[in-house]
């Protein structure tokens, strides 16, 4: 019973760590690149437009989509590793 609880706690810790890492990236591409560092990053270009503008109106949103799929994929792996995945669930990515 105690061992089972320890495993559940370890699983939850690993999940929190993953969420924290992904949310740091989430904040960097939006609040960082497009707002807090918008003025300094205006000097650099992506294609023909300023980098901060690109992050504000394109890059941040594209990163958001990737973050969710990465989370879904890594969590599926974590679920199996800790044997808490759903019954009858085939491995999907």
């Amino acid at each position, binding site marked *: 019973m105690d061992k089972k609880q320890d495993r559940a706690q370890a699983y939850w810790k690993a999940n929190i760590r993953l969420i924290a890492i992904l949310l740091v990236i989430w904040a960097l591409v939006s609040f960082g690149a497009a707002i807090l560092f918008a*003025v300094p990053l205006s000097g650099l270009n992506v294609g*023909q437009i300023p980098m901060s503008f690109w992050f504000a109106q394109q890059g941040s949103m594209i990163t958001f989509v990737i973050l969710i799929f990465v989370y879904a994929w890594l969590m599926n792996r974590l679920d199996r590793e800790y044997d808490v*995945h759903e019954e009858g669930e085939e491995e999907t990515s």
Partner: protein
Amino acid sequence: MSTETWTLIIVAITFAFYLYIGYMNRVRETAGFYVAGRGVPAIANGAATAADWMSGASFVSMAGLIAFLGYDGAVYLMGWTGGYVLLALLLAPYLRKYGKYTVPDFIGDRYYSNTARAVAAIATVFISLTYVAGQMRAVGIVFSRFLQVDILMGVIIGMAIVAFFAVLGGMKGITWTQVAQYTILILAYLITAVAISAKLTGNPVPQLALTFSDIAVRLNQIQTDLGLKEYLAPFQHFSQLNVLFITLALMIGTAGLPHVIIRFYTVPSVADARKSAGWALLFIVILYTTAPALAVFAKYNILNSLNGKTVEDAQSIEWVSSWQKTGLLKIEDKNGDGVLTMTSDKATNEIVFDRDIIVLSTPEVAQLAPWVVGLVAAGGLAAALSTAAGLLLAMSSAFSHDVYYRIMRPDADERQRMIVGRSTIFVAILIAGYFGVHPPGFVGEVVAFAFGLAAASLFPAIFLGIFDKRMNREGAIAGILTGLIFTLVMIILIRSTRLLGTAEPILPSFLGVNAQGVGVYGAILNFIVSLVVSRMTAPPPEEIQHMVEDIRVPRGAGQAAAH
């Protein structure tokens, strides 16, 4: 065939299609009515969420809004997409594992309190009602603009369609209709955007054309030359602080909107809930990354075609004269120098255009076939109807499931619950329709209210319910009420010129933050009050702590669904 005929045909075909889908997906039990029997595949739920999310206003007005705001338009782009990351990482999988029907369901059970359930139900109904009022209006406007029927008639047709598939099919009917509606709206948006992109830049992919062609830089140059605000430079319309707060308020608010959250109850498993959020955001981002490109193209095209031209030259352009007739585009040589000049001053500006024109005029500007105009009309209607349907269901389930069944009549049987469910959705449609015909003064304040209140009340309560095992009934109720009342009062004070009719705003801003961003302070207050109060009162009962442990692991989601 004329544009009107094409529009009528395409709108009629798409409507018949929605009615058919609604009829095929009619349901008999509450699980089907509230959560589509939890049988919706992740990708279909993603498309339905996207259609639910993108309203008539975002289809028609968003590109125009960005065209006016330039860089700062990013608050809406990032705010309305970044919330899905919070939803996917922090809420959706656990709410799916918990496996009931509504948002107040979770809050009521987690905080073992019917008071918490009732507060959450009131917040849900209020947020959804504010939001839906604007949707029915949009339906009426699209009908009247494209089909020359009056707004009242347009609203009635829209209500009848939504009533048919929502009352009959509940969440199941709504979901599959939304999948069809997403297809229509994204096709309409992309066809026009690709065409104008290819015409102006030679590159058919709008996102690439925006980044790699020099059109954005040229637009920025024109605006600078005219003395208008720079398009590509940040913080021209909002201060840096406001951009930060509005973006964050929209993100947290998005994650706390009940009609979005309940979509994740419909998928078969926890893994599907995670993946489905990804699909939803992908489908949304396809439109949201196209919109800023369309904004640049259309604004460049309007300025380039009109600025410095004589009135006669301008009027000889076909789309100019046709949009002048609608009153959405006004050109007038005010200073009598023979040419039109755009300025930033209302008194001297000679080219005035409504922001809706950015999307609506694009097919004509890009000289597309008349059927494309019809498709754009059908796309706008699909966007408005799908959002309205989702909101109506969220509203009626909060009432019929949480208030009627869980609080008033826990002994109600399946048949009675279905009758109450169907009749509340019908009443909700009538209320929404009334607001569509007689829009309340606060339609423009919808964004501030709906997102601010969702951010300050529901999001913190759900988040803490999952991540803080020690959070208890006292903390959550105190937090929700503090966040809700603070945000409501602040928005009313800051927007008092519109809401109370005062000459000057009673409060210009709260610590430098405007009405749209003030929900962030509400959310912070909610978190602080919840944490402090919960630590000073008794911990939640043992079985609640077990429930929290249980929703944190995916295994067993199938059984929870059986109810």
